[in-house]
């Protein structure tokens, strides 16, 4: 058992969402899963994952746009628009979208990442046609009133307070990202900077919407009790009639970081921090940018180094040295421009954070110098491959995984080849990526200590609320 005290904060609830999306933490493809793929004339991609277990479907539309595609100065607009998509169209009055889905016995929601935005409904299969019509309608017919925009802006400001401002570890995380990336928008929070969120306007939302929301920038994923043929026909009839937007560039070009040449540091003192903790993030390639085999090796490296009670970090720092009460970490690979390895440890009582950091560094250096054992590698592979089978239990999990991976530019073949590629990784491959990417110059180190903050910094971290 490895308790994660941060897990009691709201943000941890999202870890589960993330684990549904990333191939590195838990989500991998099950080769036995049958996936069918079509393309509509207007460029919309259609993916069908038949599963007859229950008479229900998961209907998702992913857009190839996220927070990292925002114009500088309007941070948060991708996420704000996602909220506003539940307002009106000509056919559907403001706020009615979710209520209609609910009346049909369905559930709906949406989420925004740096690289993709998705909308989904889970519903009895006989209503697939209806939710498709509704999703297609709001892809092109969104209507926003000034009042809807102002009210919803208050909602996202409250959301920011819940997720970030009320949680010192979330504040640290935001500061670390902003420091880790020199130029790339992954350094800007998905929810946006508060001072920019306060100014987001109806025009900002509609400009973003009109540019990025079009069938040629969308991926339809339907999982559940359906056939590919049936979904393809419905999609042609419903989404097929929407016009493509020729102005959407096929390449998604964002400002790229120069080489990372210096270790960076962020230190936060906050009376609300429960125990002192140390956090370390490294820029690493994503599954998309990695050389062949590197993302797979990084996945196994992160498992061996930091995942759970048999990991190197846990054994060294929690079990042997007893300098930390917990230690954990992971590798995030599902991204367009770069991935990230993130590690953390919580200091044991009476242990100086410098000692904890030394233990963290020593563990990392050891794995860079001597690599991992065959036994560790085999264990990590077994867990990785088994997770494929566990995930095939759930149509929603499969729909999310395929949708997100495709939205960042991976292919179905890539997803399905993953277990075989994991199987092929050697101890040598793992040592190579450890040496190359666990380089302190590629990293930011964050500390969070429960000391009182200086007055000025405190008022900045906990802004007086209610100006929004």
């Amino acid at each position, binding site marked *: 058992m490895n308790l994660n005290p941060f897990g009691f904060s709201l943000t941890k609830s999202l870890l589960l969402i993330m684990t549904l999306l990333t191939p590195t933490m838990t989500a991998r493809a099950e080769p036995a899963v049958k996936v069918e793929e079509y393309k509509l004339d207007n460029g919309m991609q259609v993916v069908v994952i038949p599963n007859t277990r229950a008479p229900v479907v998961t209907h998702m539309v992913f857009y190839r746009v996220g927070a990292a595609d925002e114009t500088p100065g309007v941070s948060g607009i991708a996420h704000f628009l996602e909220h506003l998509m539940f307002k009106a169209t000509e056919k559907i009055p403001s706020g009615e979208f979710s209520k209609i889905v609910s*009346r049909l016995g369905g559930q709906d929601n949406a989420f925004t990442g740096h690289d993709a935005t998705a909308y989904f409904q889970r519903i009895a299969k006989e209503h697939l046609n209806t939710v498709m019509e509704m999703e297609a309608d709001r892809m092109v017919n969104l209507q926003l009133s000034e009042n809807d925009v102002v009210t919803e802006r208050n909602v996202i400001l409250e959301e920011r307070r819940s997720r970030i401002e009320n949680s010192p570890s979330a504040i640290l995380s935001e500061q670390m990202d902003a420091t880790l990336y020199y130029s790339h928008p992954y350094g800007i929070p998905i929810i946006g900077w508060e001072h920019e969120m306060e100014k987001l306007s109806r025009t900002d939302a509609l400009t973003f919407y009109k540019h990025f929301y079009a069938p040629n920038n969308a991926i339809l994923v339907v999982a*559940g009790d359906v056939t590919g043929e049936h979904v393809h026909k419905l999609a042609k009839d419903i989404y097929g009639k929407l016009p493509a937007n020729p102005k959407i560039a096929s390449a998604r070009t964002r400002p790229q970081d120069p080489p990372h040449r210096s270790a960076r540091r962020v230190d936060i003192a906050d009376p609300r921090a429960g125990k002192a903790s140390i956090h370390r993030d490294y820029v690493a390639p994503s599954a998309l940018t990695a050389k062949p085999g590197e993302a797979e090796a990084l996945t196994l490296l992160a498992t061996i180094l930091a995942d759970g009670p048999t990991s190197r970090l846990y054994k060294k720092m929690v079990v042997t040295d007893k300098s930390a009460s917990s230690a954990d970490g992971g590798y995030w690979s599902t991204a367009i421009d770069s991935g990230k390895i993130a590690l953390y440890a919580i200091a044991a009582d009476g242990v100086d954070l410098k000692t904890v950091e030394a233990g963290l560094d020593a563990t990392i250096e050891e794995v860079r110098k001597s690599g991992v054992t065959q036994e560790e590698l085999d264990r990590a592979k077994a867990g990785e491959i088994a*997770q494929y089978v566990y995930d095939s239990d759930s149509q929603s999990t499969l729909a999310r995984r395929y949708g997100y991976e495709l939205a960042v530019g991976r292919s179905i073949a890539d997803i399905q080849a993953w277990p075989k590629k994991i199987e092929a990784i050697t101890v040598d491959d793992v040592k190579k990526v450890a040496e190359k990417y666990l380089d302190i110059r590629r990293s930011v180190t964050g500390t969070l200590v429960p000391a009182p903050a200086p007055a000025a910094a405190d008022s900045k971290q906990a802004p007086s609320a209610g100006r929004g």
Partner: protein
Amino acid sequence: MKFASKLPLARMRPSHKIQQARALSRFVCAMVCLAASLFLFQPRNAEAMEVKQIKTKNGIEAWLVEDHSVPLVSLKFAFEGGSSQDPDGKEGLANFLTTMLDEGAGDLNSNAFQEKIEDLAVRLSFSETKDGFYGNFRTLTKNLDPAADLLHLAIAKPRFDNDAIERMRKQLLASLAFAARNPERVAAKTWYEVAFKGHLYARPSNGTEKTIQAISAEDLETYRNRVFARNTLKVAVVGDIDEASLIKLLDRIFGDLPEKAGLRDVPQVQPVKGGKRTVVEMNVPQSVAVFGLGAMARKDPDFMSAFVLNHIIGGGGFASRLMEEVREKRGLAYSVYSYILPYRHTSVFSGSVATRNDAIDKSLDVIREELAAIAKDGPSADEFKNAKSYLVGSYALRFDTGSKISSQLLGLLEEGFGPEYLTNRNKMISDVTMDDVKRVAKRLLDTDNLIVTIVGKPQKPGDKS
């Protein structure tokens, strides 16, 4: 958790959705474990959903749904008890035990046990609520036998080695330190302290620093011996296993547990009357409030009507009254919801909202006004119709994975219903009338007695006109 900023943000906090609630606080988890039985399906595919009721020679009762479509077995079980069984001065003992069962058992020390779990890719976890102690076990069919042996060792022969105890104690103390600064956790904990003052339900499930320090290996073993017994055990199994194999498996896993549990008496209780408002000062920009009242017991004839009513008030996401009034119309919160949580010895209608400090009282005023309005006039005809339509239409969504089905079955078993509940459940919802809901609203929504706890720095607006 620091991955947050890399994560997709969801439009709505999925706080009361079964599938995603696992990662939330214990408080929400408790709600979900019990709420499981409220969301039952009616088998549409009778063949696939046949529930086999099993009793082994050792008297172990289980329900099985065979499903060979995925090579997995999901087994969930519950013992009656939970944190209400913690001895006085040892609060947090049941929670401590949930961390210790995979920390070494039989001949395997902690590390050897953990390595075996990973080699076999077993998914094994334990949790507790006020009323129950739970195990959640999933395995690939091909590893079923050795995986079941590990589960048997974990519950029948845990070692409680000193080193492992001290390691878990540190983690639990760190968790307490974080929880003490988490406004949501403090608001929920305080609500129970106020509502159930003097009763076992008022005690903190995760203990206090002092009680966690006081817990020994002997305490863990004594609790295990008292609570882990065949006469309160309920087991739900879904997946790639047949009846004959399961019978053998159950005796192997649970057969050598004591026959009878030795539980302390937990009296029936109602939340305190008088309308309490408690503020816990915390230096955060957004206040978190928990509000609640006593509610109908699970087997009260009005329970189903109350369940429909709660859906209308705050259980139905964007279709609910509170979401409409607090978030959609006024932009006062990202998250606002309510639920009914029927404990074994009480029942609670409760909810939560989070709003910036200078407007939290506005949110609470809106909530109070809406509760009073529904008590007086009932819901609108549309709200009533739509709620029933959702509750009946969405049942199938509760059984589209093996893991979800086993949760549903376990909930029913715990509450003493038979499998026929599955086929009757939607009719029970359909049979609820508007008059029922109005009557129950008057009975339930006694806003004079509303208990509210607020954590943050709530500021009353200067001119509250």
